[in-house]
């Protein structure tokens, strides 16, 4: 039996008195895209740093491709392709040489690297930029180059830390398209994000993380169905105006209400929600929409993902 790409059991990481990662357990299956969704500071990047052997594990166990991160740092890193949150391309080297020098860190011969680099540059639409300076690339191109760089060693697992943070929508979609293509080629991916649309787009399975702990895990559809329901009603009314409506809903079986500032979210009462939306007939006040991962997070924590 081949070992799991990543397997964590009661994984803990503390910085002084702060428990950045507080006993999380999860397992990534071969060929899947596994996501960590959570707000900034949830502990996602810390998990990544432990997987990539650049942050010592405080407690629990963490195995990558069956190897203990405490003991096999070099061997594990040779199997990983890493896309860090911040671009750390080598600005002293032009595009192609960035990849050549990087391949050398993995001990890949010049001849072996050459074909792979040409192929990867083509795949990420960077062939024309092969001799350009890194500083002259756009944000989206830099991101694509960082992903291309992570593939030079033909990794078993691609680890991406917030792959599209800071990109404009067009560049994001291009990066997503490339990642979906890699997924369809069977590349195992582990990614963190605080964008719920990114998680929904790319992940076969994900965990929702908050303050160092996992709140829920599963595939995005199941999570939405179980925690948010198919239909969510948003009521954008002042507290005293929405009170009678909420009173009306209070008796409905299975209903859940989350009030965040000037919006009340109504979950799990599809029929009643549709009735109210039809009666008010103004989507600026009563907005009926499908449930999403943001709702799941809201249900589990009582707060928004991006605060």
């Amino acid at each position, binding site marked *: 039996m081949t070992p799991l790409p990543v397997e964590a059991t009661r994984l803990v990481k503390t*910085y002084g008195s702060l428990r950045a990662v507080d006993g999380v357990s999860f397992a990534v299956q071969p060929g899947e895209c596994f996501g960590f969704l959570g707000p900034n500071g949830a502990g996602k990047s810390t998990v990544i740093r432990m997987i*990539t052997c650049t942050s010592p594990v405080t407690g629990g166990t963490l195995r990558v491709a069956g190897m203990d991160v405490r003991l096999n740092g070099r061997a594990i890193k*040779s199997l990983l392709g890493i896309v860090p949150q911040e671009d750390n391309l080598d600005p002293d080297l032009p595009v192609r040489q960035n990849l050549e020098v990087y391949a050398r860190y993995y001990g890949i011969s010049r001849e072996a690297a050459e074909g792979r680099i040409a192929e990867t540059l083509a795949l990420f639409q960077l062939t024309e930029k092969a001799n350009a300076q890194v500083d002259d690339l756009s944000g989206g191109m830099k991101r694509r180059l960082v992903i291309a760089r992570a593939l030079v060693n033909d990794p078993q697992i691609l680890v991406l830390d917030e792959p599209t943070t800071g990109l404009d929508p067009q560049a994001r979609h291009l990066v997503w398209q490339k990642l979906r293509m890699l997924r369809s080629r069977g590349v195992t991916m582990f990614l963190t994000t605080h964008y719920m649309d990114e998680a929904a787009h790319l992940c076969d399975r994900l965990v929702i993380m908050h303050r160092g702990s996992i709140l829920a895990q599963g595939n995005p559809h199941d999570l939405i169905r179980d925690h948010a329901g198919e239909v969510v009603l948003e009521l954008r009314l002042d507290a005293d105006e929405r009170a009678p409506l909420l009173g009306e809903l209070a008796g409905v079986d299975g209903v859940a209400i989350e009030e965040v500032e000037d919006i009340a979210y109504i979950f799990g009462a599809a029929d009643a929600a549709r009735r109210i939306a039809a009666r008010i007939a103004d989507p600026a006040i009563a907005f009926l929409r499908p449930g999403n991962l943001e709702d799941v997070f809201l249900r589990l924590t009582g707060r928004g993902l991006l605060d």
Partner: protein
Amino acid sequence: MTVRPDLSIGSYRVWQRNRDVTFRLWRTEFIGITVEPFVVILALGLGLGQFVKLGSGERYVAFLAPGLLAMFPMFAAVFECAWGSYVRLEMQHTYDAIIATPVSVDDVITGEILWGTTRSVLNAGYILAVAAVLNPWLHMIASPWALAVVPLAVVPGLLFSAISICFASVARAMSQFSYFFNLVINPMFWFGGAFFPFDELPRWAQVLGWFIPLTHVVDVYRGFIRGELSWSMAGDMAWVAVATAVFYWLGLMGMRRRLIQ
């Protein structure tokens, strides 16, 4: 995390990276590196050298030569491993990118020091050539032993690369390098036994001089350039070896603490 350095061929890969970058960017550095030695050697040799008389009767230019030949490799190492390393560590996050591969932090630091040392040796070769060109006028070099300064540049190269990277590992801002330069490197430049002989100074100054790393390097250089090898040079080499090892180790620990959290 072990006390022993965790080294591999990765050190060499880091050295290769720096070599490639330097040879790609050599044009931007070329003119400064080419012209500076002429300026310094002419100013100190022709200018200062004409007016200073030593108690021992030795010509000042001949006294000065070993110090100058040791100083240039020192500066080469300092620039590479203090400023250069800090830029790669903190501005460019080059180290973060490298340690995500099978190359360890210790490999990175070792590769950086080896490259700083390489720069010192290349630099020494060039300075010796300049001194040779100017020799008909300045008579800085008296013995073929002077050729030894090229391989000998490994000594200040390793020592000052290690000292510099040790500082880079604890520096919190680029501006702090002015402290390093003004409080460490510059005093060493003036008091490191290059410009005046220590044996004519009071006892306390000689004791103080013993603690200055450059003093020992200059002593070794002086012995080789005059062609007068002595046992005290072995003592100087031992001093440098111990200091290099200590700063290397401190640099490793500092960088590990900084990069592995």
